[in-house]
């Protein structure tokens, strides 16, 4: 049992601030949360943060897209005993990373003109591409229940427990109609991590893969499924590359 409350910092790099907003959206739990942890640094909600204190847990959302982001991330890593990446941008680069392979400096110049060359602008990188990450919470944005569960687990010295199976599993648990098999729509469900309780299919909207891929995606077979429903391979690749770069294929017959 700890005598003092664990210290927590909540940070955002380049992103939409959605994962930080999820934390603020825990309206019913927010006051209990601050009873059990000492939030030292949370720029979006508090001024006068303490940038020198050690943190027991640092939650970081957003992708690394500037040198400032990199330096900030390094500073956080140095201060934090445990660094938790939260949200798809932090885990795999997020929507800006759909540019996978695009010449980023050219694109910046294309949009901003010659002044773009002087910009602090880098292609999107996930946190783990720059520093060691201890835990990850997927989602775009993260799920409230997964965040609160992760905090509860971490406070008890346990790693967060998250499903690694596909959205299809949760879809079936809810008895949703299968948009891919029955309606031939482009649903990312079989390749996407569950945890969202198949929210989109429950509204008859195909999964767009916002939570990132399962750890062992079978891309070769998925390509066959989608092309058999009428999409071109180029379209399939483009769609799979919406919330991050193309997932790493796993060789046939093997798991990750």
């Amino acid at each position, binding site marked *: 049992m700890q005598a003092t409350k664990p210290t927590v910092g909540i940070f955002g790099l380049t992103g939409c601030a*959605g994962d930080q907003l999820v934390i603020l*959206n825990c309206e019913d739990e927010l006051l209990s949360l601050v009873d059990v942890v000492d939030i030292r640094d949370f720029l979006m909600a508090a001024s006068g943060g303490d940038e020198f204190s050690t943190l027991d847990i640092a939650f970081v959302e957003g992708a690394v897209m500037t040198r400032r982001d990199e330096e900030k991330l390094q500073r956080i890593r140095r201060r934090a005993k445990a660094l938790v990446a939260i949200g798809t941008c932090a885990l795999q680069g997020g929507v800006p990373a759909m540019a996978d392979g695009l010449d980023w400096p050219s694109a*910046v110049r294309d949009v901003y003109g010659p002044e773009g060359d002087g910009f602090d602008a880098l292609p999107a990188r996930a946190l783990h591409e720059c520093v060691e990450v201890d835990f990850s919470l997927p989602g775009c944005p993260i799920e409230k229940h997964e965040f609160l569960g992760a905090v509860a687990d971490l406070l008890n010295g346990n790693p967060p427990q998250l499903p690694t199976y596909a959205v299809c599993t949760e879809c079936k648990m809810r008895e949703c109609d299968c948009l891919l098999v029955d309606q031939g729509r482009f649903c990312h469900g079989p390749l996407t991590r569950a945890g969202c309780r198949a929210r989109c299919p429950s509204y008859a*909207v195909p999964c767009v893969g916002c939570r990132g891929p399962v750890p062992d995606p079978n891309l070769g077979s998925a390509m066959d499924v989608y092309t058999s429903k009428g999409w071109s391979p180029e379209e399939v690749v483009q769609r799979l590359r*919406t919330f991050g770069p193309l997932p790493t294929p796993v060789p046939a017959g093997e798991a990750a």
Partner: protein
Amino acid sequence: MTRTIRVEHLARVEGHGGITVTLDGERVESVHFDVIEGARLLERLVRSRRYDEIAPIVSRICAICSAAHSLTSLQATEAALGIEVSPTTRLLRDLMLRGENIESHALHIFLLAAPDYLDYPSAIAMAGRHRDAVALGLRLKRLGNMIQEVLGGRAIHPVNAVVGGFGHPPSTEELVALEDALESGVSDALTATEFVASLPTADFCDTETTFAALETPERYGYADGKHITVRRSGTAQRIPIADYRSLTNERVVPHSHAKHSLYDEQPFMVGALARLAVNGGGLTEAARSVMRTLELQLPSRNPMDNNKAQTVELILDIELALGIVRRLLSTDLHDTAPAPIVPRAGTGTAVTEAPRGLLVHSYTYDADGRIARADVITPTAMNAASLEHHFQDAVTRGAALDDAALRKRLEMIARAYDPCISCSVHLIRRRFEGRRP
């Protein structure tokens, strides 16, 4: 003697920004609203993507205004592809925007702005002495989120709003639950008014301000208007929404970094205060009463009044949302399912009012229904020039104050605008477009 007032990392706002002001004696030399946020180039990245993929991508521009980005995007796509939506769909979208406004304003007033007035670094710190107020703010915020969850499936990055309509309409049970929550919300909004009325005054500025908002003549609304109205010195000019660029053009301003949107050579403000200036005739009785309680005079000459304007919108949105929910309870909601879509080439522009002000999405599609060009102009980008104008006024008036006091005023003014800096990165982008041959 030169003096530099610097706010390096603006806290309690969305995104990353800073303020730098230099003075020579009592004369303001330069004023910068620094946008530090990284560039994500989303308008560039959506090129060649099909119409069904666009809204989920661009909603990620910003989390707090994700419903506004999502719905404005859908409207722009529908305008481009010639898709009509049913009146019920329009009603559901109206309700969704009101829910977003309620949540955003509650978040802003109680969690982001109020701590300054009461000298706290955060709402969390404030909760010790002012637990009821913080709990009230969280309750109102919860109400706004509940509306967005019922309509959109999720409060941040909604999933249920699609091109042509909705995946599933809300169920009767959900609407009844919303009705109950909104009924409780009315008294909460009135308590919120008392709280805001009790806050110390913040007369930091006194200067003529130009306001721009979407004109919705029938009722105080956030979508489906045909014109943007710009109000200044008792005059009003109307710009058809297709001509949005005449408002969001940009020029170099001698004393500042960022290139600004100026209308008729003047900076303009968007947001709640602007909406009241343009659509104030559409207020409900209760909203008018709140305005009187808060002693809010229009036209305002002080951006700090934006906090009061948001309080007025809280009661207004809750009342109007309640009316919509009651109407929905006696409506067949099945005509919200999208009809089959036939892609075609076309350009469409949609303008709505996000919580922070005017939001423009304009798309050009090719014959396959893929984006050829996308333009997104956000309220905070439009506000940059006006922000600096108000910084300048506040610093001029407050030059005798010490650095800490001046810094606090500048921060409070910045916060009063409720800036959404992730969105406003497009501000920097506009620089180049203004100078292209």
